[in-house]
């Protein structure tokens, strides 16, 4: 196709490919499309866009995964993130989505993925879980929440307690939440030993609270997330733990029990009631 007739579409496809895969074009092709300046050749001018394309997106990835970046060190994080951006360029008008597929990408491309499950390297599991955790926090930060409306207080009876909309449950193979908190405080935490950790995350007054859970608490909240009522979930817990329902109910409602703690943390709303003011 001659220079005069090349379509706008073709030139845009060419330029975009040249940004994402700088090797996809040649000096000859660059000179066909772009003029040199007094100081720079056409390819050097294009190079400004090529460099800033990755630098800008990598900076954004560091901001979305600060603890993972800390754990891997800047160089290794940058290597992984750059490969990720090459494999999954942004498909959204918003940079908020940039890191969406990163945890999944790390899982798919783990260096030991073809090995036996037992032979897998645990640091890789840690990185993947930390990425999942940071992505989850990022989503909760900006998801529609319950601010401006009533959260449940301690007087609300169980049968009308409902999980609030800006809430997530997760379990990890490592204590990623405490690692994250250490990085947040500016410490330099060591690679943590393997250890199952379960967390609930709920946003109240634009602050995402991270609640560490026992396996029973996690199972209980999972039942609520599936739409079951609290009374049913307590019964099922009692059955599974071979405890009496009365005992489980007492520990649920104890003065310093989880009911009080979770209500205070903003885990629940009052089903069907959304007042104009939030209870802080």
């Amino acid at each position, binding site marked *: 196709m001659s*220079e005069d007739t*090349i*379509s*706008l*579409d073709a*030139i*845009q496809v060419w330029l*975009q490919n040249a*940004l994402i895969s700088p090797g996809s074009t040649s000096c000859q092709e660059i000179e066909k*499309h*772009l*003029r040199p*300046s*007094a*100081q*720079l050749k056409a390819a*050097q*001018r294009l190079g*400004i*866009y090529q*460099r*800033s*394309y990755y*630098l*800008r*997106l990598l*900076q*954004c990835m560091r*901001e*979305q995964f*600060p603890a993972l970046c800390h754990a891997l060190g800047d160089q290794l994080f940058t290597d992984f993130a750059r490969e990720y951006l090459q494999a999954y*360029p*942004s*498909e959204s*008008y*918003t*940079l*908020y989505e940039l890191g969406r597929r990163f945890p999944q990408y790390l899982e798919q491309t783990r260096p030991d993925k073809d090995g036996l499950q037992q032979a897998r390297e645990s640091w890789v599991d840690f990185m993947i879980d930390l990425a999942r955790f940071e992505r989850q*926090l*990022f989503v*909760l*930060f*900006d*998801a*529609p*929440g319950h*601010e401006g409306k009533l959260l449940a207080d301690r007087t609300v009876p169980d049968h009308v307690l409902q999980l609030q909309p*800006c809430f997530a449950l997760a379990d990890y193979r490592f204590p990623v*939440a*405490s690692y*994250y908190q250490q990085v947040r405080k500016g410490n330099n935490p060591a690679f943590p030993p393997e250890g199952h950790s379960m967390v609930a995350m709920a*946003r109240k007054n*634009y*602050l*995402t*609270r*991270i*609640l*560490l*859970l026992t396996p029973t608490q996690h199972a209980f909240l999972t039942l609520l997330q599936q739409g079951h009522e609290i009374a049913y979930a307590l019964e099922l817990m009692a059955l599974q733990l071979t405890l009496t329902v009365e005992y489980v109910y007492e520990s649920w409602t104890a003065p310093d029990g989880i009911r009080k703690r979770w209500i205070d943390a903003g885990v629940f709303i009052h089903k069907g009631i959304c007042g104009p003011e939030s209870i802080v």
Partner: protein
Amino acid sequence: MPHSNLGLGLGLRNCHFNHILSAWPAVDWFEAISENFMDSGGWPRHVIRQVAEHYPLALHGVSLSIGSTEPLNFDYLKKLKNLATEVQAAWISDHLCWTGVQGINSHDLLPLPLTEQSLKHVAGRVAQVQDFLGRELVLENPSTYITFTQSTLSEPDFLRELCKQTGCQLLLDVNNVYVSAFNSGTDAIDYIEQFPCEYVIQMHLAGHQHCGTHIIDTHDRTVRTAVWELFRLAWLRTGGVASLLEWDGNIPPFEQCHAEILKAKDYMLGEFDPANVAISSETEKETISNPVGFLVPGVMDRTQAEGA
């Protein structure tokens, strides 16, 4: 529709949110990056609502991609329209650029070959966008680092024709004029003299980085004197319009940004002397161009751990 001169404003940035919401500084107006708020159901949305109640606010986009050959994203436009209604945006601006094709967003403001073909393409899309939004679009001259061999029109001529055909309006980024003129070896003063200033309703100012062979639009420092001098000329030619400082990297405290844009007052009067728009000879190592209004939402600051 004529727009009022909103005065001297600042780009709304995450690191200033707490200061603004507690001190309510006496700044004339704010400009918010649309994409940082349009999907938000959290803290950023809360902040922009509060800001909109206290200050005039304009929305400035970076992903409209008006020049792309990809179909317009009406889901994006719908969210933009909703946000504009919610915050009573004084106007909605974006750039004369494209950000991606084939479903990809480069998150860069990529230039177009300035041809009759591009003009026809962009004019058609501006008309569609304006129809959908029910208001005029405001388009900004981008900072550019390349020039297409295909280009047959100057940017001022391209924009003048676009305004004539579509009724859209313009945001003149004076720093971008300086940056692009240096990078393409053209004359910044000449650019302003050729620019269709009658369509300009807003100006941008920002700092840049001089790398010797080229200039990068970094938005990470104070405005260069030469750019202020160009602003003096642009102020004369536009008759004075709402002006705003963009600061996106190494952002100092709010009051320092505010003091920087208030310097504009010193350049609203007095004679323009072309000799003051000199090319500086300083050189620095290149950093990232920063046209996008960086996303630093401070997620870490908004989390709190509680014991099991």
